[in-house]
């Protein structure tokens, strides 16, 4: 274990930085400290930590294994839906129980169940629970769904795609199709997840009405920080050592890896599924902080943003991806939330809520062309240590590459 940290110094630094952030936010949060930060900002920070976790997962898939998945936010969203189902069910159950308490005849369990269905699905003109909600009454079962549903989707999709040897841009298109299909399916009321209304009120934890949101926000912040720390450790362990060696080999030359006797498809499937599961867990922590989830959250654009974060942060290094997600998503909420002052050019006023996407697009192009190492590359200036060389081609011929005519003695 000590040798793991010795060989991966960035892991210890990352965890230290995360711990300091947690300490700082705890001291400044309204529930536990001075209240310098607002509750909504604590929530934003907590959500950002979840996005950082899914970005780290994306980096393992893309930066290390070379699979440009443009569908990982589907797993993130599914994780959110799975936890959201329990949150909505359990809280509605409490409300119903409360309102029926003073009824002259005590309600039967069926009546309560029907009333919950009425309450949740009234908005889509239905009152029956779809089969999908069969586990929603139980927290442990639904928590298992958080892992199983994204995991099984990733496993089945990955198995079909990888065994057909779909690679490169075709695989990216396929993953886009997956997330688009899922989001279109969920938009339908018949899908049983309240169509375009999505699941809402997720910020209210069942049975904790007395606890102010300020306290809940710092709980979730801690939870998200712990998840990010553990997820980072997990992935740092996966990409170090021999596993990391094999998956980077797959990224650079998967045929060569095959001829060494490694079953490349199994490795891709393993990485794809593992990152899918972690993305689902990140989503399960994110959406209770966001309060609402609807099918638009798993639209193809969400997964493209994820790739942009990782690219801007720096592919092939976990802390780069985490930083990219943090910087871009925080900047994004600053610009689109009206935080950035409009720029008056005299003849035209730049309204950042409109122009932010243009700025993001330009910075994506600029990073790709000018600084392919991304934000993470800044750290190389201090350490001069290159965790993953960015270039895999020849470094140029030297004397050893000199070739005489075959069979001829060298003069």
């Amino acid at each position, binding site marked *: 274990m000590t040798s793991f940290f010795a060989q991966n110094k960035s892991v210890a630094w990352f965890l230290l930085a995360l711990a300091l952030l947690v300490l700082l936010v705890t001291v400044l949060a309204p529930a536990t400290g001075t209240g310098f930060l607002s509750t909504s900002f604590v929530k934003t920070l907590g959500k950002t930590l979840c996005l950082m976790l899914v970005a780290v997962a994306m980096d393992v898939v893309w930066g290390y294994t070379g699979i440009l998945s443009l569908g990982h936010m589907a797993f993130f969203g599914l994780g959110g839906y799975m936890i959201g189902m329990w949150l909505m069910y359990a809280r509605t159950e409490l409300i119903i129980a409360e309102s029926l308490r003073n009824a002259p005849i005590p309600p039967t369990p069926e009546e309560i169940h029907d009333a919950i269905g009425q309450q949740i699905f009234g908005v889509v003109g239905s009152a029956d629970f779809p089969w999908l909600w069969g586990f929603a009454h139980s927290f442990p079962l639904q928590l298992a769904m958080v892992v199983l549903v994204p995991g099984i989707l990733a496993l089945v999709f990955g198995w079909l795609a990888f065994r057909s040897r779909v690679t490169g841009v075709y695989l990216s298109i396929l993953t886009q199709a997956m997330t688009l299909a899922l989001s279109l399916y969920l938009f339908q009321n018949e899908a049983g997840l309240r169509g375009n209304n999505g699941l809402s009120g997720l910020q209210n934890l069942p049975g904790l009405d007395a606890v102010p949101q300020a306290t809940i926000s710092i709980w979730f912040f801690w939870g998200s920080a712990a998840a990010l720390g553990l997820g980072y450790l997990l992935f740092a362990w*996966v990409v170090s*050592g*021999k*596993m990391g*060696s*094999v998956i*980077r*080999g797959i990224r*650079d*030359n998967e*045929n*060569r*890896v*095959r*001829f*060494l*006797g*490694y*079953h*490349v498809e*199994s*490795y891709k499937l*393993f990485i794809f599924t593992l990152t899918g599961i972690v993305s689902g867990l990140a989503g399960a922590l994110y959406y209770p902080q966001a309060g609402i989830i609807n099918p638009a959250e798993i639209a193809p654009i969400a997964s493209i943003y994820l790739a942009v974060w990782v690219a801007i942060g720096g592919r092939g290094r976990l802390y780069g991806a985490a930083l990219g997600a943090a910087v871009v998503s925080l900047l994004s909420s600053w610009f689109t939330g009206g935080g950035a002052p409009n720029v008056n050019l005299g003849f035209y006023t730049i309204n950042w809520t409109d122009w932010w996407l243009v700025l993001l697009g330009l910075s994506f192009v600029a990073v790709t062309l000018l600084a392919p190492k991304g934000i993470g590359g800044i750290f190389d200036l201090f350490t001069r240590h290159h965790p*993953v*060389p960015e*270039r*895999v*081609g*020849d*470094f140029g*011929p*030297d*004397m*050893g*590459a000199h*070739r005489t005519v*075959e*069979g001829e*003695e*060298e003069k």
Partner: protein
Amino acid sequence: MKTLLELSGVSVSFDGFKAINNLSFRIGEPELRAIIGPNGAGKTTFMDIITGKTRPDEGRVLWGEKSVSLLKMSESQIARSGVGRKFQKPTVFEAQTVRENLAMALKNKRGPFDVLFYNKTRAGAERIEEIAAEIGLTDQLGRVSGELSHGQKQWLEIGMLLAQDPRLLLVDEPAAGMTPAEREHTTDLLRRAAQKHAVVVVEHDMEFVRRLDCKVTVLCEGSVLAEGSLDHVTANQDVIDVYLGR
């Protein structure tokens, strides 16, 4: 000497061009065999068929004591069953160190979970040191292999082949880009490997083949033109016509 690999009646064509035409070939274990032939004779396609990269249109490829067909196996299964290959153009993982390259090739279990929970062993480290000494890269173990010279990459790839400990070594132009001293070392190495294993060397360089001092198969237009000692095949009029006479 028992037969390790046998190809019979193998044909493969690409867009109507017959790259391999009714080829039959067998090699025992241990044996050293050189394959020569003009450009486009199908030498690389021959290796592609054995390693599973190319599926033949017809014919049989049988492997080992149980004569299992390689045609139903995937590339990685074939490699795991003991076929190692060195490519013509050195293909090492250039973003990784020499040690990582060798460690990846080292004979071990190849499943994802075996690899994930793999612990470095003293035996493995010693084996890597041993191979590095053999290929003259002991001082370069920590270097990123993309920085190596062309010749060193050739050596690294030979080292990876040795690390796999295969029963059949398919070696495509091992001496390209090497100095005469290195060529001699390569010959030694291949001949030593051929004391226990089956080794197939594809080579253009006649001097190199002469030094290997082994049975030679001449390929031409996708089938075997002649087979025997180097002196025997170079005396063959057909061989002189298509290959040596030019």
